[in-house]
């Protein structure tokens, strides 16, 4: 009996096609990739209303009522206004204690509440434009305070301190109330 010793084939994976396979996969991922960042306006909703508890009393001067109807017309504290005036009005209202000290506007930025109310038919776009202006007003106030106190813009300051130590945030809390919309016509 003859036992032939077979010469073993060298087990090798062919490497030539590897690059092609990798290319194919690469192209697939290139095509399906969408590098999109989620951006938007962050808000904190109030907790659900407790039926047993009365809402806390708010002095009239600390509340800014913004009404937006279905046609985008704006009523601020019973007076008509246009969208590009809103920012300045909100700033005047919130920061009243450090500015004009008008007895009809808020006592203190911490107590100031901006209430936004819409009709059910109001387009979302108009509502967001409105919210954008109000947030913009707060951002401006915080920026000014941060420059005054620390000499840096608010964004930089915010990155440096933790949320609990943020004195600017405490100084100008964003008290925005989203009222339930009117049923409308």
């Amino acid at each position, binding site marked *: 009996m003859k036992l032939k010793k077979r010469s073993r084939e060298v087990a090798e994976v062919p*490497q030539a096609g*590897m*690059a092609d396979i*990798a*290319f194919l*996969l*690469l192209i697939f*991922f*290139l095509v*399906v*990739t*969408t*590098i*999109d*960042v*989620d*951006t*938007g*306006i*962050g*808000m*904190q*909703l*109030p*907790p*659900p209303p407790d039926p047993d508890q009365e809402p806390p009393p708010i002095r009239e001067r600390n509340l800014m009522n913004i009404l937006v109807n279905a046609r*985008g017309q704006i009523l601020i504290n019973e007076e008509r206004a246009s*969208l590009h005036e809103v920012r300045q009005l909100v700033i005047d209202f919130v920061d009243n204690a450090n500015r004009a000290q008008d007895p009809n506007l808020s006592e203190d930025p911490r107590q100031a509440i901006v209430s936004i109310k*819409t*009709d*059910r*038919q*109001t*387009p*979302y*776009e*108009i*509502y*967001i*434009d409105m*919210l*954008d202006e109000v*947030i*913009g007003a707060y*951002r401006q106030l915080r920026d000014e305070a941060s420059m005054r106190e620390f000499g840096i813009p608010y964004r930089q300051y915010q990155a440096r301190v933790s949320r609990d130590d943020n004195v600017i945030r405490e100084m100008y809390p964003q008290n925005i109330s*989203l009222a*339930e*919309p009117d049923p*409308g016509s």
Partner: protein
Amino acid sequence: MSKFQKKQANTKQQVPTAAMPDIIFMLLIFFMVVTVLREVELQVRVDFTRADNIEKIEQKRLVSYIYIGPEILGGGRYGDTRVQIDDALVDDIYAIRRLMYDKLMEEPRLIVSLRVDQQSEMGIVSDVQQELREAGTLRINYSTLRGAQAPM
């Protein structure tokens, strides 16, 4: 025989290709990591509105989306405004409460991103917000693009 023989470099004129798969693999891995496969099939139309004072959502894992917009009927037609969560349209708006509560239990730091079509009316958006309040998912984000506001 001419004296001036052309001098030829002895080196081979070839780009070394041995490392090519590695480079490709590296690119591949990069794209695999950044890819977010589209996880839902949109059944409503969502055209984002624009705003200036916006922030980025850093932790994408915490985000859950609610889509609000006109239902896509096909053939370029749109139906009534509907709410979509994950892959399904929500028929009963009061079901949102339980759905979102379950999600909140899974992820206590949940952020709800509202992706609303710019032409939707505030009524339905507000109804959804009331449901979110009941569910206890209070951190929300109105998804918008960066850019100049549309003139009013």
